[in-house]
């Protein structure tokens, strides 16, 4: 216990060593959020445990960098990938030798092609002839660092980086040598040129492969983010079926974020503040000496929601995602009742509650979907069956393009719903420019709605739902 050890309170050198810095960059590229503070923590932790024990290093960095189960998986994968890829560099302890080769090379580079080739100053042709894979891989690694491979982000950059790496490895010099060999014209020289040619071809493949792996490593998070951004802003009807699984994951994640943000806002009895009035009143019996204290309380209701979804034609896609969104939010909404309509209207709450949402939606669509709409008839169905359940706490969300194929729009029913309900939100998947054209009745419904919105992308949906929750909070 008395051994003089660096006490934890002593400032620990927190300079991230080079390999760690590179790994952090890789981790960020892979989609882990590593803040500067976490970087410092990682450096301090690595200072404690060192680089020598790979498992220990992995556990340690994992503690600092990965903060959820998902991130743990991602981290494990990244760690393995990184150190597998980096194994030649790591083999000669990265801590003690912070890439001296690379720095030497930069200095001696311009025409010292002899040094350009590999760690032992072999030229590329020598390397190729010797066929030593480890040495070749090492040279590739160094050349890759020289060409800044960690900045690769898109697959379109693959060829450029491959070319650059080869050039750094000394491709120009090799080509000159090969040209010289061919010019000499002797069968011996031609054979040698032929041999080198094959080897270079193979090297190309190896380098392309290497770049491909690097792309996976450095850019996965980035491409994923780009993809998500695209999906969120794409019109829902244009998203093809292949992407639906990904969309579901996205919706769930967005919903989860909203749910956590608003879950706490409800039922917050705010203790900590004395309610003077109630305290005095409660203690009247003791002649005003306050023995019992009373506290201020605040109660926030969850919004009650009724969703009416058009499931006909192109609107169906948006309905599907709206329902998915709403049902992912059950924690923060209460009494969700959902209805599907096209020519007529039915309640689908049961189907949606009892089955996994993905299956349920397919069933709802099968039961009702893709008919031609009749808004008047659907609204009449609603008034007849469920109007009595609309209270002044209910938010009614109607999703539809308000195109009733020239049938009677029955805007009077919407008027009556509006009088009973807290508010009506109308979501229209059509762009605003199309409103009121042809058989669109949206302008007839609009006066009774507290909010009429274009809603055709995931981003739109998120905004609407945020509004809904915001209003209640």
């Amino acid at each position, binding site marked *: *216990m*008395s*051994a003089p*050890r660096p*006490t*934890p309170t002593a400032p620990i050198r927190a300079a991230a060593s080079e390999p760690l810095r590179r790994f952090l960059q890789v981790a960020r590229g892979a989609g882990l*959020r590593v*803040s500067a*503070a*976490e970087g410092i*923590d990682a450096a*301090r*932790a690595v200072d*404690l*445990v060192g680089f020598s024990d790979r*498992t*220990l290093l992995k*556990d*340690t960095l*994992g*503690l*600092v960098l*990965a*903060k*959820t*189960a998902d991130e*743990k998986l991602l981290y494990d994968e990244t760690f393995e990938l990184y150190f597998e890829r980096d194994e030649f560099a790591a083999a000669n302890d990265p801590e003690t030798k912070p890439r001296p080769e690379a720095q030497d090379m930069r200095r001696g580079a311009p025409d010292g092609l002899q040094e350009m080739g590999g760690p032992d100053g072999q030229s590329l042709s020598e390397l190729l002839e010797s066929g030593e894979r480890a040495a070749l891989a090492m040279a590739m690694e160094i050349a890759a660092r020289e060409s800044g491979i960690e900045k690769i982000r898109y697959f379109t950059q693959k060829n450029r980086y491959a070319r650059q790496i080869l050039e750094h490895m000394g491709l120009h010099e090799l080509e000159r040598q090969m040209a010289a060999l061919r010019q000499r014209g002797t069968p011996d020289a031609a054979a040698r040129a032929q041999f080198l040619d094959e080897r270079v071809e193979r090297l190309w493949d190896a380098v392309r492969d290497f770049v491909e792996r690097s792309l996976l490593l450095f850019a996965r998070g980035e491409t994923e983010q780009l993809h998500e951004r695209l999906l969120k802003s794409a019109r829902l009807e244009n998203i093809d079926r292949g992407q639906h699984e990904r969309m579901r994951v996205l919706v769930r994640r967005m919903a*989860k974020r909203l749910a*956590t943000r608003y*879950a*706490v806002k409800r039922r*917050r*009895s705010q*203790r*900590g503040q*004395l309610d003077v009035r109630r305290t005095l009143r409660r203690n009247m019996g003791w002649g005003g*000496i*306050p*023995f019992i*204290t009373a506290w201020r309380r605040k109660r926030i209701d969850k919004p009650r929601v009724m969703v009416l979804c058009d499931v006909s034609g192109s609107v169906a896609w948006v309905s599907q995602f709206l329902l998915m969104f709403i049902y992912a939010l059950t924690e923060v909404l209460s009494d969700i009742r959902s209805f599907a309509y096209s020519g007529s209207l039915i309640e689908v709450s049961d189907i949606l509650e009892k089955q996994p949402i993905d299956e349920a939606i397919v069933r709802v669509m099968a039961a009702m979907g893709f008919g031609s709409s009749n808004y008047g008839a659907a609204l009449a169905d609603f008034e007849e069956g469920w109007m009595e359940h609309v209270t002044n706490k209910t938010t009614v969300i109607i999703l539809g393009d308000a195109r009733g194929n020239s049938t009677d729009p029955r805007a009077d029913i919407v008027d009556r719903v509006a009088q009973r309900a807290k508010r009506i939100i109308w979501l229209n998947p059509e762009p605003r420019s199309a409103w009121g054209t042809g058989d669109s009745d949206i302008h007839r419904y609009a006066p009774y709605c507290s909010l009429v919105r274009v809603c055709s992308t995931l981003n739109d949906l998120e905004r609407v739902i945020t509004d809904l929750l915001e209003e209640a909070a």
Partner: protein
Amino acid sequence: MHNVEKNNPQRIIRSIDEVDAGLGAAGYIASRQISTAVYIAHHLKKPILVEGPAGVGKTELAKSVASWLTLPLIRMQCYEGLDESKALYEWKYGKQLLYTQILRDKVGMLIGDADDLATALERLHAFGDVFFSKNFLEARPLLRALEQPYGAVLLIDEIDKSDQEFEAFLLEILSDYQVSIPEIGSITATVPPIVVLTSNSTRDLGDALKRRCLHLHIGFPNEKLEARIIASRVPDIDARLLAQLVAFVQQLRGLELKKLPSVSESIDWARVMMLMHASVLAEDMVRDTLNVLLKFESDIEAAAKRIADFTRKAQQAVAINR
């Protein structure tokens, strides 16, 4: 008060093996990851956020660390609506009010001979905030943890059950080991406590909180580790039975169940087996005691079909070296 090494109230852990051994002596068989986490947390002075399914020993970890380091364990159970008056400190309002009433005469005497209101007020001011001093402060777990002279192990249990505001409120304590009390000022820990937070991930915790913690995920242990854990808790168990029992539970975890049996359930099950004087795993006995492992009727039904099969496989398990 505690038998802490003299002149060195702040014990320094020198290696991960020391953690292993220490926790082992306290009856907690830790995986390498857990020991690493404790070691790093100790040196980096960071809280550990432990996540994982119920019953894998998240809470037990904090208890064992406390008993190993002979530090007091201060436990705070989180729940919805928990706020700083219950977690940090509260003014003893009753006492304050009572004292003002009792001291009414004294106050009267004090300001009785004052000529006007201004003088009376001045005299009152001279006494400062007598009623907002430490005498009227009721320390709750967090404050108590900071005030321990030799440090403490602070267990913040099921942080995911608390509100988001509360999480934000924890940030100051977790990063600086200090709290501010408006009437008194900030109180800094004499010796920073070892903080263990546990979460069952019923909701996502905020990034700010996660950033301040080391994140340790404890999953179900593998066969070998589980056998060691059970053996340490149920020392008299027959080696063969232990191996079979663990093999059975491990197979059960492969099923799709509402609630998978955890380590605490396996320990309970082992105890039940001991009570029944079993020396090998027998099918009908498994059937009778399955409710120790599984807590839902539907789970028991789902598992019932596979019992024969699982038992047969488990019976082939050989005793693992203990």
